[in-house]
């Protein structure tokens, strides 16, 4: 087996096994810190040993065994210090076995603990991406536009609070579930987006592992809460986005925007499943259940995926849905996306006016500059467009997006 193959095996094992290893260790040893460190050590050992010893037949089992051993070593080491002895068991699960019908999965326990309401939202996201997604601290910092040291401290502080305040390691009871789920959905959507538009110069532009994991866990929560509209909405949104993935990156690794995608390459099965979920939620909305943001976003994506050709897109429907979304979520990013749709309906000049109003809040966001660059290009304002492309390229973290923006800039007259 070549070194490249071994490296690929390690990467694949990391994508497939990280959450499972951390979750199992957290359950066994009752400590997120121990679980995270032992998992990281096990993967580091794999990087060292697999090139010489070969990739084990069952990498997941090898990693779990190795991580278990690392954790036991660490606990033995620390138990020699008396003040540490008291802290041996830190995560609690005093509940009787889960009632029939409630799905139990160590990774779900891990997610609910990482998404606990006693933690700040930004902390839940960071912790879930680290503990469940297996992203590194620099990757997470990049995804949220904060310093690495700040992100590192945020995660450390979260683990300390979970330990000291006894945040439990379990799937919440049925009565607490709805409130706990919305926090989890926000986190999963961010994980999905990190997969869909991965950051980092050495990262694949689309990390199917992350999008697939986000979809897998969202499906699990859907099975757990089939009545929850936002769970269905988020799943539909993810499916309809994931369906376009095959057409989204060109053969030479460049991002292909929606208008240029080969719609025949879209995944028809995912679209069918996504549309079915959207129809289910439209029926609920017609019966008076107000849709949340994921359901609206899913509906927008249903409009896009219903058009066989970009010219068939019902842009007035898209803008109407964005208007509905703005009322729920007045964030500048929603306003930016609405402006993109407005450009198709009312022209780039109208859209640019809306986009320019967002400068104060989005100056550090690459998509703001990329959107401006495109609108300026369509208005024939080449030198301003070039400057905007330059800023977008500087801020973009995704390799395929950088390649696309660079080509577009270089094609300016």
């Amino acid at each position, binding site marked *: 087996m070549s070194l490249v193959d071994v490296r690929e095996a390690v990467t694949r094992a990391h994508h497939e096994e990280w959450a499972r290893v951390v979750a199992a260790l957290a359950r066994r040893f009752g400590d997120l810190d121990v679980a995270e460190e032992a998992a990281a050590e096990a993967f580091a050992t794999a990087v060292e040993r697999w090139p010489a010893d070969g990739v084990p037949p069952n990498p997941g089992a090898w990693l779990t065994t190795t991580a278990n051993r690392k954790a036991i070593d660490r606990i033995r080491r620390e138990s020699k210090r008396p003040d540490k002895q008291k802290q041996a068991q830190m995560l*609690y699960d005093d509940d009787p076995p889960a009632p029939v019908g409630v799905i139990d999965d160590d990774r779900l326990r891990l997610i609910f603990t990482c998404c*606990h309401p006693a933690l700040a939202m930004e902390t839940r996201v960071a912790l879930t991406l680290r503990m469940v997604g297996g992203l590194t601290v620099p990757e997470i910092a990049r995804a949220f536009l904060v310093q690495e040291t700040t992100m590192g401290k945020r995660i450390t502080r979260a683990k300390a609070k979970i330990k*000291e305040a006894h*945040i*439990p390691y379990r799937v*919440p009871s049925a009565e607490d579930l709805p409130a706990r789920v919305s926090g989890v959905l926000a986190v999963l959507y961010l994980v999905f987006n990190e997969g869909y538009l991965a950051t980092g110069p050495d990262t694949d532009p689309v990390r199917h592992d992350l999008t697939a994991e986000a979809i897998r866990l969202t499906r699990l929560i859907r099975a757990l809460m089939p009545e929850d509209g936002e769970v269905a909405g988020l799943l539909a949104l993810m499916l309809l986005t994931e369906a376009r993935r095959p057409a989204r990156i060109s053969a030479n690794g460049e991002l292909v925007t929606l208008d240029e995608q080969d719609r025949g390459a879209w995944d028809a099965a995912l679209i069918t499943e996504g549309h079915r979920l959207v129809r289910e939620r439209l029926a609920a909305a017609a019966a008076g259940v107000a849709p949340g943001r994921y359901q609206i976003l899913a509906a927008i994506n249903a409009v896009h995926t219903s058009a066989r050709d970009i010219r068939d897109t019902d842009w007035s429907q898209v803008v109407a849905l964005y208007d509905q979304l703005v009322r729920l979520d007045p964030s500048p990013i929603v306003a930016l996306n609405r402006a993109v749709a407005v450009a198709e309906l009312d022209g780039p000049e109208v859209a640019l006016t809306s986009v320019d109003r967002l400068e104060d809040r989005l100056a550090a966001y690459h998509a703001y500059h990329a959107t401006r660059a495109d609108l300026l290009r369509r208005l024939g304002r080449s030198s301003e467009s070039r400057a905007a492309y330059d800023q977008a390229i500087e801020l973009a973290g995704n390799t395929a997006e950088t390649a696309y923006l660079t080509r577009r800039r270089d094609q300016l007259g």
Partner: protein
Amino acid sequence: MQYLVSVIDDTAGLATSDEQAAIDVFNDQLKADGYWVFAGGLGSPSNATVVDNRGAEIVFTDGPFVESKEHLAGFWILEAPDLDVALKLAAQGSKACNRKIEVRPFL
């Protein structure tokens, strides 16, 4: 696992009789369910005295150690298996005494 459940007050007033009655009901329930360790209401912060005996002489200072708009008006010490239970009890306590509550674990 024990938690200090503090009552944060931003008014000068004591509990009204309705609030006091609700607190009594809550306390009885805590005792019946086995969560109760201790509880107490506190006098006004302006009646506090700060004592510092780290130096050569004892220094007494009239008033609270920190002047702020919000102050500690009382507290419970609760025995609970984990933070989920403590937060639920604190939510009931907040309703009963009609004040904000801080939940903090003991070491």
